[in-house]
């Protein structure tokens, strides 16, 4: 790892990897909680059109991508919250429009598919100091909001209606989450690429859930997994000379594949250990009525072995000797 630090481009790459590794799962946790895991994917496609606009006009692709991605994400959120379109159809429209627009405009700009590829699948080793500065600033903004407003954002993702009745600005905060997701996707554009940015938002959360019982633990663990996958991915891609984006995502997925069986075992053990609902448990000590004689061999009541003792059948029910009295069994 230390020898990677010698190269300036690798220093930039590792810093960018830490930024995206933290920011993407932070906002991704809220998306998964709202069951909008695929929103990041839709945003990535729209951001592609944004990049193409940048290539065509000569503006910085990162800026045009942020603006267009945020506009698309907010549009989806508003369509969803006012119930005009079902979420999955709105997402599908974003997927197709974004990628078609991106490819068309890039061709218009006279750029090759190779240029587009650096945005689609990341090109972390070609970062300029200006790119790195933007990535750091945007990641810090995402993290400060995702952590600072976590009680409110958790509440609206947990139960939007209930939070509206509590007086929370649920719609505004829903739009904020969508906008932050758009910023995160564009921040991840250079590390994992637009088409894989969503993976870094969702896969660490899915992995963290295998072990966690609380939202807080899921949130923190997902960020940790995101950083480990991103930094390890950058290192591996340098050593093995593989593209950084797919390497990071495959490492994150490998983590999930390893975690899933462990999670299944943990869930199974928890289910086994879970005590019965106290209120639902029948009284475990049910005294039999007064009984005139002691049960024993030859008392006239049929004896039935029952676990570690013998019950005596007594008029349609069973008596089990217990100290000086009988229990109903």
């Amino acid at each position, binding site marked *: 790892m230390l020898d990677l630090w010698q190269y300036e481009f690798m220093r930039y790459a590792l810093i960018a990897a830490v930024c995206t590794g933290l920011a993407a799962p932070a906002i991704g*946790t809220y998306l*998964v*909680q*709202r*069951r909008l*895991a695929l929103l990041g994917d839709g945003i990535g496609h729209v951001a592609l059109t944004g990049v193409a606009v940048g290539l065509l006009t000569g503006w910085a692709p990162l800026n045009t991508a942020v603006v267009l991605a945020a506009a698309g994400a907010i549009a989806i959120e508003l369509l969803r919250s006012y119930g005009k379109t079902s979420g999955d159809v709105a997402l599908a429209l974003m997927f197709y429009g974004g990628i078609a627009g991106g490819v068309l405009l890039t061709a218009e700009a006279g750029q090759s598919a190779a240029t587009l590829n650096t945005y689609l699948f990341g090109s972390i080793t070609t970062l300029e100091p200006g790119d790195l500065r933007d990535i750091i600033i945007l990641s810090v903004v995402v993290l400060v909001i995702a952590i*600072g*407003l*976590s*009680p*409110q954002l*958790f*509440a609206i*993702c*947990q*139960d939007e*209606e*209930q*939070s*509206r*009745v*509590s*007086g*929370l*600005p649920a719609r505004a905060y829903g739009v904020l989450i969508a906008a932050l997701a758009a910023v995160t996707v564009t921040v991840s554009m250079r590390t994992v690429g637009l088409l894989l940015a969503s993976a870094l938002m969702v896969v660490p*959360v899915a992995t963290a*859930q295998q072990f*966690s*019982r*609380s*939202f*807080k*633990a*899921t949130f923190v663990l997902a960020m940790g997994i995101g950083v480990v996958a991103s930094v390890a991915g950058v290192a591996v891609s340098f050593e093995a000379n593989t593209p950084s984006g797919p390497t990071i995502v495959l490492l994150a997925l490998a983590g999930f594949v390893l975690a899933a069986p462990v999670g299944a075992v943990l869930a199974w053990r*928890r*289910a086994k250990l*879970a005590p019965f*609902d106290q*209120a*639902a448990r029948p009284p475990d000590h049910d005294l039999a009525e007064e009984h005139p004689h002691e049960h024993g061999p030859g008392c006239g009541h049929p004896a039935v072995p029952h676990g570690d003792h013998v019950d005596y059948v007594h008029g349609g029910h069973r008596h089990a000797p217990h100290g000086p009295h009988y229990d109903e069994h």
Partner: protein
Amino acid sequence: MTPPAVLVEDVSVVLSGRPIVRRVGLRVRAGEFVTLLGANGSGKSTLVRSVVGLLPPASGTIELFGTPLHQFHDWRRLGYVPQRSTAQSGVPATVLEVVTTGRLSRHRFIGWPTRADRRAVNEALEIVRLADRGRDSVAQLSGGQQQRVMIARALASHPDLLVLDEPTAGVDQASQNVLADVFSDLSARGTTILLVAHELGPLAPLVDRSIVLRDGRIVFEGDATQAVLDLGLGEHHLHEGPAPPGIPLADDASWGQGRA
């Protein structure tokens, strides 16, 4: 004189062009326990969703504690339990985390839970008899226990008015009995309760007044057991014959106002 906790006057609610609630009037006095009964599709859920501000009425006025709903901002006085079969979302969450969101009417825009919030959350969990389950994931609880979590969440802000949408639907007998105890405690403390239900079960003796809706109109108001006997609640049948006395028939001309 204290204003009624809930005042609904001549309210109609229209959903995608269909009238669901038709010119309903309703008054719940402070401290009263009122249930809204009716078959599926009778409009009872829609009516309470309007009362808590989730659905704007097409016409009529709604007041909470004497304040018109659009000017009402004292959200911590209102606790709401939406109609849900589960308190789960896409990410695991503990009982404490879910119930703590009920305190956010005090930190609506920003702010983390304080010591007072944690105390209120623990009290709310004690009221619903789940104090020992705070650190468990809600996914581990039974359906009835999850309903109690949602009630604790509504109680965490110490509301004066509790509005519950079918909290007893699909709940096991043990949890129903716990809920009956909880409502009886709350009523004794002076909390106003407006509860939507299919059937009352063990709650029947606690209820002050029952209101029965059918096709978006109030068809009965009074003693709950009487309502069940008179109206054959829960059965789906067309209401034939004249409306009960005292209930105005909706004149269809007034419906045009609510539509585009």
